[in-house]
């Protein structure tokens, strides 16, 4: 449904997105996850045809976004990060106008608008001026205009940013309910948001895809990722016994070093988000063993996640 091939985007000399390729199938619910400035909005602006890529090929529903732009745009419903609204219009007339712009005809526009007003729970604000609405309600009006024409592809850029927490929950629920009918691409810098709504996630870091997988796989990957490697001189069996007494340690394995039989290499798996290296070194020294090396390994994904998961 959406296909990017080697997409690059420069703003002047600055590469905001470099050589990204991915494919989203019909009906998939995919999250773009990444910290601020990662390039999520830039990717969405290219998919929606707002700006052309500097390099690469991009198609939506089989239509090239540059050469068959109108056909491609017809398939898309889009909510930009800024939630653009004509504040001097009423909720009803705004949604109606956006629907007509997206090609709905005058005859059935009323029932369509009534329908999305109901889905987005805006009944009480039907004839209110948009300028009078709170941020959370504006967000819903923004979502309404994105779905008014039943687009095959729905693109939501940070749909819960800047609204108050109880409305965030409702908005997420609303998006979840919508997701069944559309191919959905959503961006966020909040990990739980993506993991609660999406089936698959693309982690964007400095304009590149750092990881791409299902939520399930990523979380199991993560749980296996917190590992420590240590080279220790001493009896391997008793070292393992002592280390296993530390609370946060899940398992300890060792291999005898072949080149130098002085020390053995230990692989220690720990709980996520706990760094127990100082505890390990204390135990080793107290027992009179020799500590040669102590190092965290294989945490690149975790590192990225930590950057991303700013507090909600």
């Amino acid at each position: 449904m959406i296909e990017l091939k080697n997409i690059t985007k420069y703003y002047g000399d600055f590469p905001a997105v470099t050589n990204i390729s991915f494919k989203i199938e019909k009906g998939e619910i995919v999250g773009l996850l990444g910290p601020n400035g990662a390039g999520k909005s830039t990717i969405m602006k290219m998919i929606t045809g707002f700006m052309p890529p500097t390099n690469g090929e991009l198609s939506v529903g089989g239509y090239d976004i540059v050469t068959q732009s109108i056909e491609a745009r017809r398939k898309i419903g889009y909510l930009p990060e800024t939630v653009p609204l004509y504040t001097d219009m009423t909720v009803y007339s705004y949604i109606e106008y956006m629907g007509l712009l997206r090609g709905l005809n005058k005859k059935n526009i009323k029932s369509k608008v009534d329908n999305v007003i109901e889905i987005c729970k805006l009944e009480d604000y039907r004839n209110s001026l948009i300028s009078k609405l709170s941020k959370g309600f504006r967000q819903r009006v923004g979502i309404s205009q994105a779905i008014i024409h039943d687009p095959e592809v729905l693109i939501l850029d940070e749909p819960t940013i800047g609204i108050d927490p109880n409305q965030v929950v409702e908005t997420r629920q609303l998006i979840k309910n919508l997701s069944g009918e559309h191919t959905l691409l959503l961006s966020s810098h909040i990990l739980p948001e993506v993991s609660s709504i999406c089936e698959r996630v693309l982690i964007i870091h400095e304009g590149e895809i750092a990881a791409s997988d299902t939520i399930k796989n990523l979380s199991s990957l993560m749980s296996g990722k917190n590992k420590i490697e240590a080279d220790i001189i001493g009896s391997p069996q008793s070292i393992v016994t002592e280390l296993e007494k530390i609370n946060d340690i899940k398992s300890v394995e060792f291999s005898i070093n072949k080149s130098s039989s002085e020390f053995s290499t230990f692989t220690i798996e720990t709980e996520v988000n706990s760094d127990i290296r100082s505890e390990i070194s204390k135990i080793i020294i107290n027992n009179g063993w020799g500590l040669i090396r102590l190092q965290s390994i294989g945490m690149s994904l975790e590192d990225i996640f930590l950057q991303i998961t700013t507090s909600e």
Partner: protein
Amino acid sequence: MRNIILITSKEIKTYFASPMAYIVGGMFLGLTWLFFNTSIVPGESNPITESNVRGYLEPTTLLFIIFSPLITMRLFSEEEKLGTLELLLTSPVKDWEIVMGKYLASTVILISTLLCTFFYVILISIYSTPDFGPLLSAYLGIILYGIATLGVGVFASSLSSNQIVSAVVGIVILLLLSFLDSLGAMIDGIPSTIFNEIALNYHYGDFTKGVIDIRNIVYYLSTASVFLFFTIVILQMRRWR
């Protein structure tokens, strides 16, 4: 066509929903009424003639320098400021349809305001028997003059997200275009001819004499087209930026 009409009618509605519309419209009509009155020669047997109409329509052309940018300033600036330009440019609507839709809205607004001044023509025909030829051609001229200035205004609006800046840019361009012929009068040779031909005023005189010269019509229409084309280019540059 459907998209153009859709955008046009939305813009007209938005325009008349703001108090600005009535301030601008009221001032325009007030000033033309003033021009009309000062063009009446009291004590003559036929106090109102078609030369009165010319008398007030000539200075009215100068009003466009200010009023056209005031009508057009929000058309793109406001979209840019609200961010709605992003929605417009990602809708299945072509860039030129957006520009035409907005431009047509401004022409409808301007022409309907001008039609209000037709009241003076009715006054004239009550008190005297004017020669309708030059009168109507003068009106045709002023409408063409007006829609050319609106093209400039729409272009200016696409340059900034600040309405005031857009209006000022529009006014400056129109001042230049209006008074190029005065500059042309000061020099001679080919540059003088070029200045004259580009000047908005230069092409208006014939209309008030009852002469409808196709070249003048083409001039005003192409001035509008050139600036609308520039507007489309600016929109596309926004995408490529």
